Structure formats: C-alpha cells, structure tokens
C-alpha cells in the first residue's frame, strides 16, 4: 500500500518549472529511488514531501494525511546539504534534533545512546562537532536522521561526499531498515547505486517524472536488447557499427545497445574478425541506457548521467 503519495504536484519558482505535474507512489517496506540529472526537480520534490516547501498545486499525502507538521514527525530526513552545529556537543545536538521531531526527552536519550553505541561513537558524546573528523560527523548525521525512529527515511543524494566506509555502512543501514519493514526513499544521479539497492524507481527529467515503477519489471520490459562484450585486441571495429549505442566502453569492454532490431550475430561475427572474444552476453539494458532511451538522447545533459 502507498505510504507516500504524490499526486499531480507542481512547483514553480518564478518562470522555472522546478516540478511540473509529477505523480508517483511509494509503497511501504520498499526502497524507492528517485533518479535524474542535477536540476531535474528531485530535491524540490523531496522538500515538498518533507513539508519544507508547499506545492503550488496537487497534493502530497503521507499515510493518507496531507503533508503537515504532524507528518514531519514520521519522516527522518537527511538533506543533500548536510551539517550540524559546530560548537555544540554531540549529545546535546542529537537531543535537540531528536526532540524537535517530537520525541520526549527520556525516549530520545535511550535511542541516542543506543545508536551512539551501535556506531562505536559513545566516546564522542561530550565532544563538539568541530573536534570530530569528517567521517565521524557523518555518522553523527546519520544518527540525527534516524534516532527518532521514523517510519519513513528520506535521503537526498546520500552517497555524495561520503567516504567509502560510511558509504558501505549507509547501504547496509538502508537495506536493514527495509528488512525491518521501514520505507526508504532516496535520490541520486548515480545509476549503479540504484541498480544495486532499489525496489522501485521514478525517473526525473526537467521537472517531470518520465518513468515510474518496479525496477525489475521496467528492465524486463525493455527486453534483452543489450550486449555485454569483453574482448582482447583492437577495439576500433566498434566505431564501424551502425544503429547501436555504446554506453560503457573501455579498452576491453563495451556495453552495446542494439537499435532497430539489428541481428546480434552479425555484431559477434564482426567482433570475432577483429579481436579475441572473451565474453559475449545478451542482457537487459542498464538504467543509464533506459534513462537515455526514455528521455531521448537530445534531451539530456549526458555528463550528468553515469
């Protein structure tokens, strides 16, 4: 069942249509990915779900209730622009932020102690944030997001600026939360993270949701129209191919999207004439490829998508 429902939502800033008639649903107990290049309207949508901004028209409901200070309490939000009070002690800071979310002080204290313990951070309780390393303060930021035990977790570009260890920890936490029946929504412009973690996705481009649904179903619907090719030798023959789109190319690897129903065996033959083939595999397209073929090559800033 839908725990977050976004219905025909619009938000304009002056002449910019940041979000233009967007609808999607996030189901309980799922990991939902909001994808798209920078400036596609993801952060604006997330801010509206968090009741930081209000939509110009349309409606956002959380558990059936229109977004309000009450719905804010059931959401844990980690914005892209992250930060904490530099001159405040870790424990006081967490108490403040958790109580602002409506938790009473006794419960907040228990929860904070639990999470500090869990992250091996109990020793930092009385330290100011400015004394901590970047990785440490990132951990404190997670705790600030999750300590009030919300049902919904929203992370805006959570992996940007994270060190590899914390990145891995966050991934584990996200999956662990889902397994506990919580709902996670996160936005990213890095497609491979979505492929690894998301159950459902919504693709954003220029303020509009261009594709929504279950990730596996979406991929299956595109069919096995892509070739994963691993080879040894001169790769220049790839340039002579017509009616293909090569997305992920290196000296001995290429992901080839076959267009116009071209015969894949012909490509294999051509490849065998020019190089030694280690692997030839028909696969479903990558999300990057799905995004490009949905939006159209001309309508995206290619550098934004990886």
């Amino acid at each position, binding site marked *: 069942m839908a725990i977050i429902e976004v219905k025909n939502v619009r938000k304009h800033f002056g002449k910019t249509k940041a979000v233009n008639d967007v609808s999607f649903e996030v189901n309980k107990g799922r990991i939902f990915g909001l994808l798209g290049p920078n400036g596609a309207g993801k952060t604006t949508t997330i801010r509206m779900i968090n009741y930081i901004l209000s939509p110009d028209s349309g409606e956002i409901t959380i558990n059936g209730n229109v977004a309000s200070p009450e719905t804010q309490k059931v959401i844990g939000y980690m914005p892209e*622009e*992250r*930060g*904490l*009070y530099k001159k405040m002690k870790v424990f006081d800071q967490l108490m*403040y932020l958790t109580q*602002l979310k409506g938790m009473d002080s006794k419960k907040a204290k228990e929860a904070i102690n639990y999470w500090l313990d869990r992250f091996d951070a109990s020793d930092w309780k009385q330290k100011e944030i400015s004394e901590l390393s970047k990785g440490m303060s990132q951990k404190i930021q997670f705790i600030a997001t999750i300590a009030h035990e919300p049902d919904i977790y929203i992370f805006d570009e959570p992996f940007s600026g994270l060190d590899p260890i914390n990145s891995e920890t966050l991934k584990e936490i996200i999956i662990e939360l889902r397994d506990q029946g919580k709902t996670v929504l996160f936005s990213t412009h890095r497609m491979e993270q979505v492929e690894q973690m998301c159950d459902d996705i919504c693709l954003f481009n220029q303020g509009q949701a261009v594709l929504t649904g279950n990730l596996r179903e979406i991929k299956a619907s595109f069919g096995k129209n892509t070739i994963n090719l691993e080879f040894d030798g001169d790769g220049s023959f790839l340039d002579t191919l017509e009616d293909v789109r090569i997305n992920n190319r290196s000296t001995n690897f290429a992901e080839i999207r076959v267009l116009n129903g071209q015969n894949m065996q012909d490509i294999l033959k051509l490849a065998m004439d020019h190089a030694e083939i280690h692997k030839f595999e028909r696969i479903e397209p990558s999300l990057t490829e799905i995004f490009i073929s949905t939006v159209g090559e001309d309508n995206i800033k290619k550098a934004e998508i990886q």
Partner: protein
Amino acid sequence: MSFQKIWLVLKREYLTRVKSKSFILVTALTPLAFVAFIAIIVFISISETEVEKQIGIHDETGVLVERLIELNQTRYLDVSSEPVDSLRSDVLDGDLDGFIVLTDSVLVQGKSPTLVHGGSGGISFISAIRGDLRDAVREAQLERANVSQEVRDIFETRTGLEAIKLTEEGEAEDNTIVASLLGFILGLMIFFGIFFYGAWLMRSVIEEKTNRVLEVIASSVKPIELMFGKLFGVLSIALTQFVIWIVLYSGISIAAAPIAGMIMEAQMNSIPGGASEAASTFDPSTLNNFVVEPVIFVYFILFFLLGFLIYSAIFAAIGAAVETEQDSQQFMLPVGLPIFAGYMLNTKVMEAPDSTLSTFVSLFPLTAPINMISRIASTSVPLWQIILSVILMIFTFLGTMWLAAKIYRVGILMYGKKPSFKELAKWVKQG
C-alpha cells in the same frame, strides 16, 4: 504554531550562549567598560584642555596690568617697558604667544583693545582673556570714579541658581544633571543593546545557514517557529544580562551613600584634626542622587524589549538572506540608519527633553526606543505620549515581523548568490 517547538529552539539558543565564556566575560566586563567610558567623557569635559599661553601686557594706563597678573600669574606678563615693535618680533620668534596694548582709551572710552597673537589658543582661551580684561577694566573704572565700597560689592555679586524639583512626595533636591546623564546612558544602552543583540541574532542565523544545519531543522520546525524561537532566545539572553546589571547598579547605588558615610565617620574618629575639613568638602548624601527609581528601569526594559522586537526580526531576515557576514553589510546600512539617527539625536533630547523635536523622535517608532527612555529619565513625560509611543511600536514590530517572516522563509533555503533588494521584495510577494 507549536509553542513546544519554539520553546525547544529558545532553550537551545539561550543555554548554549549563557553557558559560553564570551557571555560571562561580556556580562562582567561591560559595566567596567561603561564606567571607564563615562569617566573618560567626564574627565575630558572638566579638564582644562588648553595649553597655558603667555600674553604680554603693554600697559600704558599703569593700573590694569597688576590687576590682570593678580587674576592669573602665569597667563599675563608685564611688558610695559618694551617697545611695541620688539613685542612683535617676540611673538614672531615664539618668545611670547601674544600681546595686548592697553591705552587710556580702553579705560576712558571703553574702546576694545586688540590681542596680537601668533596662533590663538582657541575660542575658549580668547574668551577667558576677554573675561579677565572686563573684570580688570571695570575694577579700575570703579576705582577711578571713586565709587564707594558698597557699590563695588554690588558689582562683585554673582547670583547663582538653585533648582528644586516638585513631585507628589514634596520638594526634592534637584538632580537634573544626574537625571539627564542617566537618560542619555539608558538611551545609549538601548542603542547598543539593539545593535549588539540584533547582530548576535543575525550571526546565529547565518551560522545555521553556513553550517548547513538549517534544512534539517526546517524538516522538523516551521521557519516562523524557528525565527521566533531564536528571536526570543536572544531576547532572553539580553534580558538576563540587563537584569544582572540593573540589580548590580541598584545595589551599589543604594549602598553607596551609607557606606561612604560610615567610612567618613570612621575617618573622623581616627583623625580628629582633619575631620571637619573632610566633612565639609564631601557630603555622602549626594550619592543618593545616583539611586534610580525602579519605575525607570521598568520603562527601560519595556522600551528595550519593543525596540529589540522591531529591529531583531529584520536582522534575522537579513541573516537568512545572506550567507556571510560581509554580505550582510549592504542591508545593515539602511536598517541601521534610523536607529543611528535616534542615537545621534539623543544629545538634542538631553539638552531639551520637552522640545517639539524631542517629542517627535520619542513618538516615532523607529527612534522611540532610544529617545523616549531618555526623556522619561530626564523629564516628566505625559502618560499619553508614553502610551502612544508604545502602541506605535507594537504596530511597527508586527509589521517588521510579518515582513521578516516572509523573507526568512524563502531565504533559509537559498544558497549561492547574494540577493538584491529587488529579489527580497519578490520573496515577500512569494512568501
């Protein structure tokens, strides 16, 4: 609006600051700095600032020069024996600062003599010489006219003026000077208070913005709740500080007279000889002039509170609109202008607290916090004026609050470029 959340924000703002070292230092050092500041002003105003210059007197009358030297031995020098030409070269060489030739016509026809100088000692120096000359000439004229001692005594009389203030409780010894000084100081404290704590609030908002903690907060609290929480948090800090100072001041001023009296009594007993002299030069009861009526402090707190509310919301909005303190400068100037005008005009208010100008600036809501308290402390302001100025200030602060809340709401999520006034106006429409 959730008061519980406002309370949480207020509590954080208050506790983190009050516990800080800078708060304790400011609380302790400001009264000392203030005393030093006042002491310097008093010292400058009472000390003789001019350098004593020497004026040669070429006296042809034979009766004036002794009188002048009698009046001021270091200032005047008898040079009647030297020719005027050599006096000129003395002045040019710097041996003399100036000279005056006094002829009989000065005495007989009342002609004004001329001071020839190589650089005057300023207006006050010249008027001092003029006063000396007048006295000397008049004395000589009186003597020449063979006027009786009685008439001379009449000319010697200098009538002073004692002032007594009539209040409900009866006649009280006048303390106009102390009262207007108090009025000025209270106005000054409100001026500094609004600026200091307003800037404090602004910095606190900018800090949340640059720390990037604002969006986390905004996902829990409405911007208006956050703004109110911070505003009243800083206000509570200010009030804490003022109450500490007021209690301290009242305690000292009330205790000063009895303690001074006791010390003097003790001295009197130990040194029987010099006691009468000490007692005659200083009366400890004059210290009671410095005891301030509690009602004035009540007004002080009220006007500070209203003034702070009017300005601080704007300061908070500026903080939300910019990202660094440097960027805030362009907005600080127009906001600071009226309050600065109030401060500058306060000397006028002190000189004539009942003038039309004083009445106007004490009613005009942007200057009233400073100028009205000065008037209240130094004269008796009609109650209707006080009430009117309070009402005007309340409406003004509702207005600035409304405006600021809109700018604040949009501003806290804006990063990147520094907005212009035009954009701020757009935010207000948007909010």
